[in-house]
């Protein structure tokens, strides 16, 4: 059972959704048969590369004063999942390089660790994910060889993979993230409650098993 997850590292619902899915997988009877693949999606693709703007400023500029209410509510729900979402220190950046690094991390088998590290760095540590050396350090902490990360960031490697992910999301009709696809058959949009994820996993597993004519146990 393969779950593909489209998300961005500056997307709070993606972080919350990740935790909720993890919680559901902790209850799912067949979690050992689940494979996770992280797919790229950029919420702010027009943000100039190499620049970092305080997220609180960025949101107020784009959405007006209600932005702070929005972040306050999201942060409160994040706390319920054990996450410290600090919008006062977070920096809005173009995440293309971060996604390229995530593809590299997946190729060397540490995709989930890298995803988690970048999310925490952005939301809790106020890290500048547009800074190549910051990305190299974070990739290294997730288990990626730093020289290899530096090499990828110096070029354009994996940019095609990022674009392909985004195009695939659009083909699936995704307009926002997180967006979950199970075995290219089932779509789940948004940071659903853990119980809903669990129910969806069980539904997908049962139907897939029945389709193959195998017992469900």
């Amino acid at each position, binding site marked *: 059972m393969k779950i593909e997850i489209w998300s961005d590292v500056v997307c709070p619902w993606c972080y919350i959704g990740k935790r909720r899915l993890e919680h559901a997988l902790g209850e799912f009877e067949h979690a050992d048969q689940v494979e996770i693949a992280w797919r790229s999606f950029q919420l702010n693709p027009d943000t100039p590369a190499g620049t970092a703007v305080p997220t609180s400023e960025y949101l107020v500029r784009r959405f007006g004063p209600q932005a702070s209410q929005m972040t306050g509510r999201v942060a409160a729900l994040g706390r*319920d999942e*054990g996450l410290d979402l600090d919008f006062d220190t977070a920096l809005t950046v173009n995440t293309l390089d971060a996604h390229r690094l995530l593809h590299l991390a997946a190729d060397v088998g540490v995709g989930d660790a890298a995803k988690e590290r970048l999310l925490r760095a952005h939301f809790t540590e106020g890290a500048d994910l547009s800074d190549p050396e910051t990305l190299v350090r974070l990739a290294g902490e997730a288990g990626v060889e730093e020289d290899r990360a530096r090499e990828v960031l110096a070029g354009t490697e994996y940019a095609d993979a990022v674009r392909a992910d985004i195009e695939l999301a659009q083909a699936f*009709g995704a307009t926002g993230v997180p967006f979950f696809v199970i075995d290219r058959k089932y779509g789940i949009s948004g940071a659903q409650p853990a119980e809903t994820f669990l129910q969806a996993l*069980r539904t997908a597993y049962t139907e897939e098993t029945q389709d193959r004519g195998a017992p469900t146990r």
Partner: protein
Amino acid sequence: MSKNQADQSATAADQSATAAGAVPSGAAPLLRTLGAPNAAVCTDGFCEVPPLQEAAQLQEAAQLPEAARGQRATMGADK
């Protein structure tokens, strides 16, 4: 999980999807949609909280014991 339990779960999820009325935004017709229609997404940089979900989540959080909230599972394999 017994087959009966699995069937019940599947039915419940189906009902959830059916109750949603159709395909929620974010899912193409070729995918069968599972889950609630009003889940939280970030679109174009905006990450609003669906009012119904916020209320439900806050209520749920208030009912959960601290220990249960602290339990975290880890995610599965990489691609």
